[in-house]
C-alpha cells in the first residue's frame, strides 16, 4: 500500500514537472518578448501590421546604432552613471551596515518599530520630497554636482539597506564575536574582521540591488542635476521628451545600448543575487 502511494505520488510529480516546465517556458517567452522585439527593431527588423498576414521588413542594419552612438556624449553619461551608482552603493551600504550592526546587537523597547520605520522610509517615493530637496541643495551649493546627487541617492537607498542588512546580522551567532573580544579585539575590529566576512554574501547581494535601483533611478538626477551631471536615464528621457518625433528604430538602439551594461552586470552577479533576502521572519527578535 505504502509503495503504491509512493508510486502514485511519483507519477503525479512527473506530471506536475512537465506542466511546470511548460508554464515556465511560456513565462520566460512572454516576459522577454518585448525585449526581443526591441532588439530586433534596433537592427531594423520591424513588422508591417497593415497587411494580413503581417510582413517583416528584413533589411538588417547597424545604422540605428551609429545614429544612437551619435547622441551627444553617450560615453560621458555612461561614466557618470557608473560613478554615481558605485559611490551611492558604497556609501549607502557602509553607513547602513554600521547602523544595522548596532541595531542587531541591541535590545530595547520599540526596536521592531524602529526597524519598521526604516522600511516605511524605504517605501517613501522620491517625488514626496524631491521638490524641496532641490531647493535645499541649491542653497547648499550641491545642486547639479556629483557629490550632491550621490549623497541624495545614498540617503534614498540606505533605509532599505539597513532593514535588509539587519536581517543578515541578526542571524549571526554572537559566539565568534565574543571569542574575538576575549582575544582583546575592539568593537570596530570585530565588525571589520569577524562580522563583515561572515555576512559578505548578503552584503554583496544587497549592494547589487542598490546598484541596480540607483542606476535606473530617473527622478532624483532629473530634478537634482542639470548640465554638469547627466546619467543615462536622464539622457534617455530628455532625448525622448524633446524629440517626440524620434523614430522607433533609433530609440530601440538607444534602449538596447542603455540596457546592455546593466543586464550584463546582473547576469554576472546573478549567483550573488540569489543570496538576497527580505525575509522578515528573521527580523523578529
Amino acid at each position, binding site marked *: 500500500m505504502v509503495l503504491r502511494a509512493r508510486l502514485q505520488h511519483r507519477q503525479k510529480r512527473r506530471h506536475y514537472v512537465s506542466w511546470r516546465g511548460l508554464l*515556465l517556458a511560456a513565462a520566460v517567452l512572454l516576459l522577454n518578448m518585448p525585449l526581443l522585439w526591441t532588439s530586433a527593431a534596433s537592427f531594423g527588423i520591424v513588422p508591417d501590421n497593415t497587411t494580413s498576414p503581417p510582413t517583416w521588413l528584413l533589411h538588417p542594419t547597424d545604422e540605428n546604432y551609429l545614429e544612437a552612438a551619435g547622441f551627444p556624449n553617450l560615453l560621458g553619461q555612461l561614466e557618470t552613471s557608473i560613478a554615481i551608482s558605485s559611490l551611492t552603493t558604497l556609501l549607502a551600504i557602509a553607513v547602513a551596515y554600521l547602523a544595522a550592526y548596532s541595531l542587531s546587537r541591541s535590545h530595547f523597547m520599540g526596536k521592531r518599530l524602529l526597524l519598521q520605520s526604516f522600511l*516605511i522610509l524605504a517605501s517613501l517615493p522620491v517625488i514626496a520630497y524631491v521638490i524641496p530637496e532641490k*531647493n535645499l541643495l541649491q542653497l547648499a551649493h550641491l545642486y547639479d554636482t556629483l557629490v550632491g546627487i550621490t549623497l541624495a541617492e545614498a540617503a534614498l537607498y540606505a533605509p532599505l539597506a539597513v532593514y535588509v542588512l539587519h536581517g543578515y546580522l541578526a542571524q549571526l551567532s554572537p559566539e565568534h564575536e565574543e571569542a574575538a573580544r576575549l582575544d582583546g579585539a575592539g568593537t570596530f575590529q570585530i565588525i571589520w574582521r569577524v562580522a563583515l566576512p561572515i555576512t559578505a554574501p548578503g552584503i554583496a547581494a544587497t549592494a547589487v540591488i542598490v546598484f541596480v535601483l540607483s542606476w535606473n533611478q530617473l527622478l532624483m538626477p532629473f530634478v537634482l542635476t542639470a548640465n554638469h551631471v547627466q546619467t543615462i536615464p536622464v539622457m534617455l528621457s530628455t532625448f525622448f521628451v524633446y524629440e517626440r518625433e524620434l523614430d522607433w528604430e533609433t530609440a530601440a538602439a538607444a534602449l538596447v545600448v542603455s540596457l546592455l551594461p546593466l543586464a550584463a552586470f546582473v547576469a554576472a552577479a546573478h549567483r550573488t543575487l540569489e543570496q538576497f533576502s*527580505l525575509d522578515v521572519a528573521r527580523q523578529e527578535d
Partner: protein
Amino acid sequence: MLTRRQRMLLFVPLALLLVPFLLLPALFGFLTSFTNYAPFQPGQLVRFVGLDNYLSILHDDTFRTAVRNVTVFATASVSAELIGGFGLAYLLRESFRGRSIVRFLLLLPWVVSPVATGIMWHFLVNRESGMINYWPALLGLPSLPYLLTFELALPTAIVTEIWRKMPFVMFLVLPGLLAVPADQWDQARLEGLPVLGQIRHVALPRLRLLMLTITLLLLGDALGNFENIMMLTGGGPGSATTTPGFYSYQKAFVAFNWAAGTTSGWFIVAAVLLVGLVYVIMARRGAD
C-alpha cells in the same frame, strides 16, 4: 556586547546622511506647504497661509483625477504583481537543471529602467509596427484599438508596470518559499491537498510577513509613480493617466507653482505613512 555610547556612535554616519538628505527636505516641504514660499520668485515676502495650498489642490479637478487614477493604478498593479510574482516563484520552487538561468531570465524585465519601460511600450503598442498588433494581424483577427487612448491608457500603463515589477516580486518571494522545509510540502501533497491548498496551508502562514513587507514596498512605489507614466503617456491623453506624482512634478517644474508641487507631494507622504501604519499593525497582529 556594545556599550551604549558605541551603539549610538554606529548610528551617527546614517543620521548624518538621512537627516540632511531625506528628513530635512521632507520636513521643509511640510512646513512650506503652509506658506506662500516660492523659490522661483525671489524677494517675495514669505507668510503663513494656513491650509490654503491644501484646499486649492483639493479643489483642482486634475488633482482629484490624479488621486482616482493612482488608486486604480496601485490597487490593480500591486495585486497582480503579488499574485503573478508569487506564482512565478512557486514554479521555481523545486530545483531543476537550468533553474538559475530561468531565474535570471524571469528577473530581466525588472532590470529595464522605468524610463526605458515607458519608451519601449510607447512604441510596442504602435498599431502599424508594434508587437501588440502583430498577433491579431498574424491570426487574421481584426486589429486592436490603439491602446493609449483616453479610455485605455491607464489600463495599458498598469499592464506595463506589472510587466516590470512582477519579476521583482518573484525574486523577493522565492527565498522565502525556498526556506519552507521540503517535508511540509510533501506532507501536504501526500494528504492530497490541491496546489492552492498547499500554498494556503504550507506557504502563506510562513510567508505572511514577507508578503506584507513586499506589499508595503510595492504600494509606496506605485503611489509615487511618475517615470513610467511620463514616458509612456506624458500623463495624458488629457489627464487620463496623471498621478499625484506626475501632478507634483508638473506643478513644481513646468507650471513653476512650487507650493502646489510640495503640497501634493505631502499628500503622497501622508498616503505612504497611512499604508505604513497599516503595515505596522498587521505585522504586529501576525507576530502575537
